[in-house]
């Protein structure tokens, strides 16, 4: 079996102890960083994603795989930078102002990191300005917002309005989630995407970044 398929196999198995050395092995074999990332690490995670949706495996298995993937990423990162492979993307994430519900948001963060995204987690009670300024400072193309209360959901609309007012709508994409949200609500407030759970948040953000 090739090293890359061995990497994805160990990611699927959630084995964080073997993935770093396998990644190192792939690097020593001279494989391009991009291939190690795409075929090895992300390859494993896509299988995991599909199995999770089919209820063949459960959330803890996904998180184990994500941890293994993270361990491989740590090894690969210097090479990705050296070979100028763009990161999958940076996401600024937070629960909106006035809202302290962060359990769902934290799960989204874990899943995004597991899928290889860089996440800047602003915590909860985050102001509209803070979302946008942080995204700009860090050159992050995605603002992901969580709200669990009817009363705080409108803050998301403030963020999308502010993005448009500041002429940033080409540069910043928004995704929203949380119990009071829906596709309709997201559309009404001018957000670019909505996801009902953390696993689909990963898919939607991928689509946003690929211009989908």
């Amino acid at each position, binding site marked *: 079996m090739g090293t890359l398929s061995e990497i994805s196999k160990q990611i699927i198995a959630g084995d964080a102890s073997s993935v770093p050395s396998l990644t190192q092995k792939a690097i020593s074999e001279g494989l391009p960083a991009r291939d190690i990332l795409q075929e090895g690490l992300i390859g494993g995670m896509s299988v995991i994603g599909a199995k999770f949706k089919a209820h063949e495996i459960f959330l803890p298995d996904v998180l184990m795989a994500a941890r293994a993937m993270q361990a491989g990423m740590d090894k690969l990162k210097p090479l990705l930078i050296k070979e100028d492979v763009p990161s999958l993307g940076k996401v600024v994430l937070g629960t909106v102002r006035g809202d*302290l519900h962060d359990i769902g948001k934290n799960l989204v963060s874990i899943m995004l990191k597991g899928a290889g995204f860089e996440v800047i987690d602003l915590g909860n009670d985050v102001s509209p300005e803070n979302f946008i300024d942080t995204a700009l400072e860090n050159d992050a193309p995605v603002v992901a917002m969580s709200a669990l209360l*009817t009363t705080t959901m409108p803050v998301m609309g403030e963020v999308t309005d502010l993005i448009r007012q500041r002429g940033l709508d080409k540069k910043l994409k928004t995704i929203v989630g949380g119990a*009071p949200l829906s596709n309709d609500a997201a559309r009404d407030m001018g957000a670019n995407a909505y996801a009902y759970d953390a696993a689909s948040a990963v898919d939607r953000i991928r689509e946003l970044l690929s211009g989908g």
Partner: protein
Amino acid sequence: MRPQLRFLDNDLIEKIVGEARVILKELGVTLHNDRVLSMLSDHGARIDKGTKQVYFTDSVIDSALSTVPNSFKLYDVLGNETHDFCSGKVHFTPGSAAINVLDFESGKARPPVTNDYVSYVKLVNQLEHIASQSTALIPSDVHQGMSDSYRLYLSLLLGEKPTVTGAFTIAGFDVMRDLQLAVRGDVDELRERPLTVFSCCPTAPLKWSDVTSQNAIDCAELSIPVELISMPLSGFVAPVTLVGTLIQHTAETLSGVVILQLANPGTPVLYGGSPAIFDVRYETTPMGAVETMMVDCAYAEIGRYLGMPTQAYIGLSDAKQLDAQAGLESSMGATLAALTGINNVSGPGMLDFESCTSLEKLVVDNEICGMTLRMLEGIHPKEDFPSISRFQELLSEKHLLISEHTRRYLREEHYFPGKAIDRAQRSRWLEEGGLTLGERANQEVRRLVKAYEPSRLQDSAKEELQNRMESEARRLGMDRLPETRIE
């Protein structure tokens, strides 16, 4: 004999409580409110100002447990006693604070507006087995800054039953206090006859937000009863085992008891919660899971053991419609809750993980509650010994339909559900339209909303309520409140 269910024996309860005390002493809780921090510190708890961590002591816990009342009462807007939260008494209240209302006509969940809330209050006012109102919906047609107080306003204005509620902000509480004073007249009267129960929710794991801590001590100051709603999610932000979840729930709830009792010894408390297992397939918090219900019943046993009346979010469903799953989860929960003797059961009307309220479901759940309460009364002899004369009567008359004994006990022994529950012959059912449960319940909703009679609260109090709410609305930039059709 009264039927009763137990999941825990006293040894296991002692062990769980002992473990919770260790957690409170050694790990403590994070508490983002300086006033409460210094109050705890004054009473001997160790405080780390930098990390906002409080480490409890056995003596502060014991002293709280010695002042917390083992029972208390609630009174309706007219001042009549409606609730006695004491050993074994079970009362039902609608599940609280839904994001959506399930619109019967369209079958869709949508944000509620004032008129939905008005219909809801009219309905609850007349549902016999739902003992109190709760601020079950959040009308979306008023300023968000008043969405907590506006619900209470409508409930106090239109309904007579006491109200289970909660504030969303520190300022929200002040308005909600003033609304209660508009009904009761003054603070002493409110203290004497509590009208509401406020939910205060510690943040899992082992945290208290600024707002919740402040709401808690604000309630305590006025002796407003508080239900402590700890929400460990098993396997996610709490241990996966039910015992582990119970340890966390006990620690979080005990920390709340301490805060309330230090703020004002004797503050009435419901030892409550809304725990759930975490479904690792869907990333959800199923309220209809049997393990969620087991945790509810078990912590209520712990609460009772510690000497407090109890509350739980149980008897609700994760279904999206009024379907068989809704019935199964709601009735299983209501039955288990009643058999456990949970004093305030929050659930009727709710679907979709506490996110959606259905008026039709409320009508059906009222029947579930009625049947459950009947079951709780148990089986008792009523002129049944000796029985020979009754059987002689039966054999000679061929029936007992008009027997003295039947007429005396019929209504006590048999519970008669309303129209939502189908007990007709198939032909009659067909002749009457072959209606589904949802359709029958909807007919009941319409009938009851129409049959509503205005609250008997005195007009001066109603005016006072209106004035206070209107001035709050103006403060928030609304010229007037949405129209409420009262008749």
